[in-house]
């Protein structure tokens, strides 16, 4: 077994665009579920809006990369409004059903052949990098050390991702420490009680949905920045992976989702490297190396179940809250 390549691959995922994209999406879910109590099972939809909004506005409309990001953000606000206006007045479970359906509708719209000129259908979109790479402030060359060695393009993606993540996390921290955050948490506990105290619950829930949606869409953009947009990525299982990252770190925390995303990706990449290696060196019997690399998804599922049962507050969650799980 080649331990050095396994460990090096694992170490790389500590700081990768995918990890940061997950962290951003999980932050969005923390806003939705952890703080406002909105059961959003359509975070993959928001990520798709981000990724496609960015790629389409560059490829079809010839926008600059930063204009593409703005278009994505506006699109995700509109998506949140469309989702929220009919459903936020209803009970929370309805939002869960509607969001999962909306994310699927969106994905199928991107997948259908009807809009192949714009969306690229099943092939997805690629080749939208020129404007972004032209804006790269780092001169050509290699940066970093060991497993964390990047060329100037990769570094530019990482730096932009880190800046976005820092801004979003700080914003969420500020919001949740403010009286606005107090109202949001109150709504999570009992929206009628908050309504009886004279707060416009619908408006607050809508604001929370939009903010979380924008975070999710930024995650989608970071995911798409280095490579391509592929409709096969934005499936329901992406939503549940982001949920896993969120619950792993702690739903009602700000740093939990970030930590959760890192742990999730480190484990994923460790397992996807180590399991096939175990098979090929004969330690894991009865399965092929292809089967071995899919076992990690089974392990993710088992892990999620154990987590929800034995540590529902996540790694960073408040232990006192666990005592009073509703």
């Amino acid at each position, binding site marked *: 077994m080649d331990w050095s390549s396994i460990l090096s691959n694992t170490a790389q995922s500590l700081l990768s665009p995918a990890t940061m994209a997950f962290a951003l999406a999980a932050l969005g879910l923390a806003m939705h579920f952890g703080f406002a109590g909105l059961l959003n099972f359509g975070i993959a939809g928001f990520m798709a809006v981000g990724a496609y909004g960015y790629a389409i506005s560059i490829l079809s409309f010839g926008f600059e990369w930063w204009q593409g990001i703005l278009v994505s953000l506006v699109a995700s606000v509109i998506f949140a409004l469309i989702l929220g206006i009919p459903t936020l007045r209803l009970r929370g479970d309805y939002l869960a059903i509607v969001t999962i359906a909306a994310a699927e509708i969106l994905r199928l719209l991107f997948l259908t052949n009807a809009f192949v000129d714009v969306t690229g259908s099943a092939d997805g979109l690629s080749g939208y990098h020129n404007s972004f790479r032209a804006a790269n402030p780092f001169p050509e060359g290699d940066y970093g050390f060991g497993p964390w060695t990047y060329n100037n393009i990769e570094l530019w993606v990482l730096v932009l991702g880190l800046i976005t993540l820092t801004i979003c996390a700080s914003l969420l921290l*500020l919001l949740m420490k403010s009286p606005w955050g107090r109202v949001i*948490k*109150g709504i999570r*506990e009992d929206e009628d009680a908050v309504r*009886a*105290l004279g707060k416009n619950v619908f408006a607050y829930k809508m*604001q929370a949905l939009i903010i979380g949606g924008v975070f999710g869409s930024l995650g989608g953009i970071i995911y798409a920045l280095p490579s391509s947009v592929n409709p096969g990525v934005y499936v329901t299982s992406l939503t549940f992976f982001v949920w896993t990252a969120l619950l792993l770190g702690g739903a009602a925390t700000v740093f939990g989702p970030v930590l959760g995303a890192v742990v999730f990706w480190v484990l994923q990449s460790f397992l996807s490297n180590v399991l096939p290696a175990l098979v090929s060196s004969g330690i894991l019997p009865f399965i092929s190396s292809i089967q071995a690399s899919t076992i990690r998804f089974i392990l993710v599922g088992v892990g999620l179940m154990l987590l929800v049962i034995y540590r529902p507050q996540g790694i960073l969650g408040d232990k006192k809250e666990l*005592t009073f799980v509703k």
Partner: protein
Amino acid sequence: MSSSSAKLPGKPAEKSTGLHVGAIRPGVPKVDPIVTIDNVSRKFGGLVAVDVEHLEIPRGAITALIGPNGAGKTTLFNLLTGFDKPDTGTWNFAGKALAGIPAFKVAQMGQVRTFQLTKALSLLTVLQNMKLGAKDQRGEKLMFSIFPFLWKAKEQEIEEKALELLKRFKLDTKKDDFAASLSGGQRKLLEMARALMTDPVLVMLDEPMAGVNPALTQSLLEHVLALKSEGMTVLFVEHDMHMVRHIADWVVVMAEGRVVAEGPPNEVMKNPAVIDAYLGSHQDTDLGTVTGRITLPTKGKK
């Protein structure tokens, strides 16, 4: 019987009198009404839950709303506070028509309510629960919230007010605990204290004494009386007749969605319609003698 009938120490509960104009009858006009209800009806399928022709709630007094289970008391509460919409009718609060006004705006006007099933915000601390009730905190607006210097001063003010109220309700030692860790009675106190944070004009309490032990009932009674002496109007739903008799200045009796009687407590409770519909003919008899399981020497009180 419960100690709620015991005299409050040093506080002769003065009753407000002369609240009505003309002969006492259901729907009698009041000298100074704060709430006026006209033809408000609400149907759930075929069931008429509320059908009130006319009702006025006197300002600055404590009004009790009583009636059998299913009489429509809570539904009327929901309609008045905007939590439910009536099929017909109009109603005014402090001179403003409330039809079609959403619940949160009704609350902002100074009409605050509590719930039959206590709604403490479990995973917020007691102090956060209280602060949530405060009005005019700019920091609750999204745009202002991320700039602490815009709302820190107000927050300090709110905190002082909250601590003062918590002290009054003897919850100050619990301020940093999750509301979920409070007992049922303490949650009732918290809910009432939180309602007071909104500086209400009209306080509507839905069964404030349900499931509360006698000693706590007494302290809740004092709190309700204190609201009146501070100039607030109180409307409450209650089944504890001792409490109703003790603190209410005016009693409204509902049955099958209608107002069947109203008047000062002592007179209303002699009304045969009220005895029939609600109190029952054994209201002052020990339950043991009603069921025949215990024989007590009755003093011919009934």
